[in-house]
């Protein structure tokens, strides 16, 4: 049972993380290659506060707040630069995060933070909390889609300039997407810190940012249900097939490439094609 509980907790944390990126990249169309930095901020915030004696539930809002605050700052960058330039800027953010944290002795420096205090909920209780949070984030995503804000996000993703012409305050909505998305990434980071009880800067580097992006892309950018499924599958993959543990990155990279090459819409598009072959054929011709 112990193993399943750990696995489910890991999956729940990954799903929260992936859905948080889906809000920014999927809904609002702002590509981010540095999302792990925000998870890192949340994880470090929770870990430091826990070590200072704060109770588990008190650290969560602070972790979200700090990650969200940094998210707004990076979001401001998205107002200055677009598309390829934004991708590279967010990539810079994650390298900057790792580089800065590594040099700070009060954050554990190269060694990272270990012996993070227990959450005091027991393994099953903690799993319950992460799963609940996971469901809440999924519901929140679906809800956002249906609101006015979600529609504006969609509009920005489709055609930013038209939205501006329509008189929509695009910067405000972009910042909102970054704030919500990065705060949720901070939440997943706090769970991550409590789950592993050890964190280092390299847990939140570029590779992790790509991993979470691959989950979103694999599922199908923007689709809540498919991103949830993809994140759950991909995070569990290495645990299920011990054989590929060593080849994890090869499989990740390969899957990412093959999916983009043959189905840029991810699993969501594959499923659509499978269940409704006529529609796509018509759409293509």
């Amino acid at each position, binding site marked *: 049972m112990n193993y399943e509980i750990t696995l489910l907790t890991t999956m729940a944390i990954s799903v929260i993380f992936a859905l948080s990126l889906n809000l920014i990249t999927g809904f609002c169309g702002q*590509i981010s290659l540095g999302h792990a930095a925000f998870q890192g901020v949340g994880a470090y915030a929770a870990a430091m506060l826990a070590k200072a004696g704060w109770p588990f539930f008190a650290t969560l809002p602070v972790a979200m707040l700090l990650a969200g605050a940094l998210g707004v700052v990076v979001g401001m960058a998205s107002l200055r630069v677009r598309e390829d330039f934004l991708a590279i800027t967010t990539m810079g953010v994650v390298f900057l995060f790792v580089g800065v944290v590594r040099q700070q002795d009060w954050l554990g420096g190269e060694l990272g933070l270990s012996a993070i205090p227990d959450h005091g909920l027991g393994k099953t209780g903690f799993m319950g909390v992460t799963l609940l949070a996971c469901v809440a984030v999924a519901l929140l995503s679906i809800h956002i889609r249906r609101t006015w804000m979600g529609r504006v996000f969609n509009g920005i993703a489709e055609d930013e300039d038209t939205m501006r012409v329509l008189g929509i305050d695009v910067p405000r909505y972009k910042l909102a997407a970054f704030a919500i998305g990065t705060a949720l990434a901070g939440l997943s980071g706090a769970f991550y810190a409590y789950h592993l009880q050890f964190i280092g800067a390299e847990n939140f580097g570029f590779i992790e940012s790509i991993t979470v992006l691959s989950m979103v892309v694999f599922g199908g950018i923007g689709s809540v249900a498919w991103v949830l499924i993809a994140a759950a599958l991909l995070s569990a993959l290495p645990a299920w097939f011990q054989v590929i543990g060593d080849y994890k*990155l090869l499989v990740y*990279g390969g899957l990412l*490439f093959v999916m*983009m090459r043959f189905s*840029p819409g991810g699993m969501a598009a594959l499923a659509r094609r499978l269940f409704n072959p006529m529609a796509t054929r018509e759409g293509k011709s």
Partner: protein
Amino acid sequence: MLFIELIAQGLVQGSIYALIALGLTLVYGLLRILHVAHAALFTLGAYVGVLVCNASGSLAVAFVCAAVVAGIAGVLMYRLAYQPLLSQPPFVALIASIGLYIAAEEAFRIVFGAQGLSFTQPSLQGQVTLGGLQFKQAELMVMIGTVAIIAVLAWLQSRTRVGVACQATVSDPQMAESFGISLRQVRDINFFIGSALAGFAGVWVALLNNLVEPTMGSVPSYKALAIIVLGGLGSVPGTLAAALVLGVVEAFGTIYLGQLLDRNAIAFAFLIAVLMVRPQGLFARR
């Protein structure tokens, strides 16, 4: 004295960045793709260089083989990976490219082992004193080689039919095509030259460190992206200048900011700072 030394170090590093980033810029100018997997060709070139040099004993043969193999691999990569994705939004190709790079890095690790390879008889390792500064022979050769290659490229671009065809294609593909330029050939040539340069740079880095590892491409690949963005995406002279500037900024940064940030963080802090002031890059004309 430290001042001049740092500038010299920065220029050596900058020359290598320039060799890698030039290929990326050629690809970006032509296809608007951020070609992360370019660094896989850099690593491939380094491995080919070391293996050929150890087998044949000739460094010149190693350079030629590395450049040719990387160049061919680059053309294949374009045909198999990018060509079908050109009609998709740009992030599709970017993510495909990242996937390709990650897979390639792991493939190098599985095929050649994680601990890396070295030259059995490393050449060009002697010290040279020039104007009171100590250089490795290889370091001087990198700078001279980079200047020579860039001069040759500039000449090819402006003075030969093929070069002019490439320029025409970059500025207006449709117009170029209607004048009878084969887009397919131009793209193949660009990928070949850019990738060959990456392979060439790989051998230089292998010589400088006397070590080839599977992960040697990861830092240059991300940094080369930073450089072409700094240089204003797609501009060859801009890329060149940005590469040298970044090399020098890093050299100074590691001395004066080393307590606060590591080398990569300095490079990206510089990148972000520049982009916030000039979102179109340092040297873009706009």
